[in-house]
Every structure is written in C-alpha cells, then in structure tokens.
C-alpha cells in the first residue's frame, strides 16, 4: 500500500488501519487494510471514525479537508488531537518522519518509508516498542517507553482537550525521564528526581521502608524498584506504590507497598519515581465548561 504519512498517533503503522482519500465534495474513499475499497459519505465516515478505527491520510491538506467537511462533529476534536499528538515531545516519533518524508518526496512506497524511518532511528511508537523488545533500551527506559505508548494509545479514546494537555505535560516529563533513566547515570541524583538510590531500613511482607539520599519529586505515583546488580525491574517486574515519603536533614524515607514483597534491611535499591503516569488524566473540575455552577450569593458588608 502506498502511504505517504499517517495522522500522527491515530494511525500507527503496523496496526490495521484504513486509508482515507478525498474523492470530491462530501465523498471519500475508504481503503481498508485488507485492500478492499469503498466510497463513503461524510455521515458514514464520521460513524466509522467514532467507532475508533485508526485511519491514515496523505497529508495535512487532506486532514484539513476532513476537518472542514466534518466541522461541528466529533471529528474536529480528533483533528485537533492529531495535531496535538503530532506535537508531542519526543516528536511523538511520527512527526519527524512525516516532515522528513514530506520534504523529500511527495509519495513513497512502504519500503521507502521504512527506510526513512530507519535512517531517522526510531520512527514510531510501534518502532520504539520494537526497539524496547530488542533490548536497545535499558529496562528503565523500556518501562518508560511502554508507559508513553500506553498514554498515546489512550489519547485516542479521550475527547477532553484538558485531558490531552495534561497527558502531554506528563509525556514531556516521561520523555525527559527516559533520556536520563540510563544505567550509566542511575547512581547519581537526577535532575527531576526520577531515579535515585535507596537503602532498605525496614521490611515486612507487604511494606518496605527505604531511605534515600534525596527527596522524591512526588508524594504520589508509582515507583519502580531495582535491587542492585540484578537487573531492572526485579521481583517479577512488580511495581510498587510509593505510599509515603518524609524529608529530613539526614535524607528521606519512602514507603513502598506491594503484594508479598520482602527485602532484607541494608539491601540497596534503585528507585525510579514514576509520578507522571496519567491514570486519571485531568481530574474532573467544577471549572470545566461542562460543569458550570453558580457562585454563592452573599451580602457585602457596609464598610466595603
């Protein structure tokens, strides 16, 4: 299949998707991944898109036309999402490819596109996950890569721009953490506190208290724990909740909880804080447009 580009983040190469081409006013070609092609009108197109079928388009101009023809419907947000995701830190790994491809040739065969991606290093989220599977990343980076991929995948299902913005901020932090979460520098305190050293001071079957040399960045979030010299993550890849932290001049303590975990006091840990997983996204707020409420009514005192 000839494919010049994808809507960033909506269509991930390697995942079955449809290719959309504009035929004329209100008429679109829908080419499925299995090669079948049919003509659809805009209402049908929107119905299919609402079902969450990943689609690809040729370029920004087609994307703009898609937005124009479906304006006022669900697609407007999807188009924004496409652009938002295209702008994600780390290039979302799709945009650099798209730009590079667009700047060099108007149309490319799949093989050419693959070659372009290869020349740019990691080309897509899918490619990044492949790299992670091949062991190109440190285990910590692999964890981050998985988290970012999960985040991007979820972005396609959310419709609240506040959620997207929140997710992008978290992804920016995740990308930063990924760049620094490298075994070579793991022992050092890192700039945003994502990785630090700790020593177990107390341990019970489901609770570990470890003392670290610098405060964790966030009081809530997940923490990945590594026992020195045994790889990352250890203990079956289990994640532990960062249950509490306290700061003192001597250092700080973190409490990790998890099922059936036990470590001997004195054991060295490397703790990677993971405060940026947007499990909740942007929290519901009375300040969102959808939930407008009136303020209280009070009498202003005379002296005012």
């Amino acid at each position, binding site marked *: 299949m000839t494919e010049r580009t994808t809507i960033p983040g909506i269509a991930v190469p390697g995942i079955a998707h449809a290719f959309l081409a504009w035929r004329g006013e209100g008429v679109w070609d829908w080419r499925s991944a299995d090669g079948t092609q049919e003509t659809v009108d805009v209402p049908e197109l929107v119905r299919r898109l609402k079902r969450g079928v990943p689609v690809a388009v040729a370029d920004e101009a087609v994307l703009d036309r898609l937005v124009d023809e479906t304006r006022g419907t669900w697609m407007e947000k999807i188009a*924004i999402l496409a*652009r938002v995701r295209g702008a994600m830190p780390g290039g979302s790994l799709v945009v650099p490819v798209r730009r590079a491809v667009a700047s060099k040739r108007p149309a490319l065969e799949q093989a050419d596109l693959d070659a372009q991606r290869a020349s740019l290093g990691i080309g897509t989220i899918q490619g990044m996950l492949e790299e992670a599977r091949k062991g190109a990343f440190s285990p910590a980076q692999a964890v981050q890569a998985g988290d970012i991929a999960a985040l991007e995948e979820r972005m396609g299902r959310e419709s609240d721009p*506040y959620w997207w*913005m929140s997710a992008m901020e978290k992804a920016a932090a995740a990308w930063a953490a990924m760049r620094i979460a490298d075994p070579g520098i793991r022992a050092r305190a890192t700039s945003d506190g994502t990785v630090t050293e700790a020593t177990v001071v107390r341990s019970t079957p489901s609770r570990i208290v470890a003392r670290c040399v610098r405060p964790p960045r966030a009081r809530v979030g997940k923490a990945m724990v590594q026992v020195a010299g045994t790889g990352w993550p250890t203990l079956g890849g289990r994640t532990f909740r960062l249950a509490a932290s306290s700061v003192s001049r001597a250092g700080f303590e973190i409490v990790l909880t998890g099922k059936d975990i036990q470590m001997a006091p004195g054991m060295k840990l490397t703790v990677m804080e993971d405060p940026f997983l947007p499990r909740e996204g942007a929290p519901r707020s009375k*300040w969102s447009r959808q939930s407008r409420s009136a303020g209280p009514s009070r009498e*202003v005192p005379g002296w*005012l």
Partner: protein
Amino acid sequence: MNDAAALADRLPAPARDALKAIWAGTETVILDSPPGAGKTEAISLIAPLLAGAGRFPVTVASPTVAGAYLIAERIQRQNTGVPVMLTGGSFTPRRAAGVPCVSGNPAPGEIYVSTIASRGAGRGRTGIMIVDEAYQATALAVRNAARGADQLLLVGDPGQIGPVIPFDQTGFDMLEDNPAGRAPDVFASRKGTVRTHLESTWRLGAATVEAIAPLYSFPFASARSESGYEGNEILVAETGATSVIDPRLMRTAADRACGLARRTVVRDGREKAATVAVIATRNEQTSILASMLAARAEGAGIVVGTADLLQGAEYDCVVAIDPLAGAATATGHAVALGRLCVMLSRHRTHLTFVTASQVARLLDRETEWGTVGMEVRERLAKASNRKDPS
C-alpha cells in the same frame, strides 16, 4: 481581625471592586494589573480581609515556590492577626521567615499559601482561591489547582510572559476553552466573570507608561511621585549590530550598565547607589555580558539575566537589549510582546534600550507583533529624544 474597614481603605478602588465581587459570590473575578501597580500588596490585603472579616477559607496559589514564600511573608507582615500558613512539599521552615509550614486545607478564617502545581496535585478544598501571577499559568494548571475551590480570584499582569509549555501547543489554538491558554484569558469567557484592572503604576514613570501603552488593552497612568534620577527616563541607543552577539551590541549594553552603576538615585530623601540590571532574551547574550561585566570594577553589582528569569524583579536602572537587535530573522521567541513588555517595565527610574538599525526591517506590519512592536519602539525613540523634566 483588626480594623477591616481601615485595611480595605488601603486597597485601590479596582482592587476593592474585585474584593466586593468575590464577597458577593461571583464565581470568577479577574484583577488585571500593569507592571508595578501593587498586585502583591493588593493580595496581601484582600486575603486577610476575606479570611478574617469574611471567615472564608482562603488559599493563595503562586506559579513559583519563591513567589509563594514572598506572598506569605507579605501577608504575615500586614499583622492582621489572621493565621497564614505555607502548604506543600516544597516549603521549609528555614526559608519561611516565621510562616508555619503545614499540610491540609484551610479552615474558615485561615489563609494557606501554596504553589499552583502543588494545589493541582492534591485534592485540597478551599472556599476562595486567589491565584497570583495568573498570566504565568495555563488554564489547565489553574483548573486543576482550583478544583476544590468554590470561587476564584485571578490576579496578574497581562503584559507578562505567558506560561512556558515544553511542546508545541498550536493544536489547541482553535479552541475557545484552550487548556494551554493563559488562565485569565480562558476564564474571562466564562459566564458571569467580573474583570477589572488596576489603574496606576507606582514603579514606572510617565514616559515608560506612554511607551508601553500599546502592549495593554486597558489604560493606566503613572503614580510615581519622584524618580530620584537625574536625566531622561528612557534612552534608546542604536547600534549597527548584525548578529545577536555582535560586539557592538554587547559593548554598548555593558558600557551603559557600568555608567549607570556609578550613578546614585535619591529615594526617601536619601542618596544611594543605583541598582542596575541588564536584560537580554538569549542565554548566549547574558553569558557574554556577564563575562564582560565581570572584568570591570563597576560590573560587580550589576544583575544580568534573561527577561524570563528577571520577570517580576525591579531595579533602579535597566539596560534592555532589543530582542530583535542583530537577529537575522524574527523568531517567535524574539517577537513575543510579553517578553518585550517585561524588558521595558523592570525599571523604577531609567531604561536604556539598546537596539540596532536592522530591527525595523524584521517587523512585519501585517502582524500584531509587528505593528505593536513597531509602535512601542517608535514611542521609545520619541521619549528618548525628549528631555524629561526629571
């Protein structure tokens, strides 16, 4: 609390209007301010009035930790008897200047001071949230921070540099309810929002007010009584710089800063050495300037920094390097009007604006930044050619 009426009398009329609106139950109130108009002072009076006389639980949120320390200290200094506390993981008693550091939520009659990020991360409840420097926060950040608040008072200077977002947010631009937008700009469109603005600046003189007027959507005047400085309020020094680190540009700025550092200003009847800052927009410029000044005796006390870094600061004299001076192209960073506004409004007595002859060529008259940027520069030049009475 101590005499509430006397405390309220110290508020300028627009700030009192904002207080009245919040007191009456308006959900969102925006208090805009020109530079040096006493935003922090207004908050340090409004917060204790709401908490003390109104018995509301009040939270003041600042974009930065330093800002939160400052506002907590200012409220404490008002000696109103209303308890004020810092809350959040970033605060330590050592730096808190006697303000207690606690956790939790304010009770009626208490003021908690925190950062916007800290309030956004927690699930705190409060009655009224006052956001300081609200134009430096995104709508997303304020929405998250205020989700446990019943009412919101946003205070800020619309001329300042907006929030720094580490990714391209243009995808959101077409939304009216834009999570990446500056909080007051987005909240202003909520139904029932009351918006008012402070009308005078205590920091800037008349010439500067006139020069930066195109950068504001509301009028304001200078209320500065005396400058304490002999000479023009504004001086424009034009160079033939052809790069942003052109030695002519750098040397002109450094020479002028050293000259100003030798001068004195009279304040409260006392003569004292002028505080001087050199403000640029690029880190390579500040690096060069810092090294040039380090080699000179007069350079010892001169502050060098970027507009982003020195936003919110105040000096007797400022040397500002035109963001477009020597530039080959007009980048978004260099043409941002907020950045220009910050550079032109940090001085109490004198501003030297170091520019270059090629700047006019870069200002695109088809754009807002081009027309407004040109008008501001023309006004600066006009003020420079005029002999100020001071």
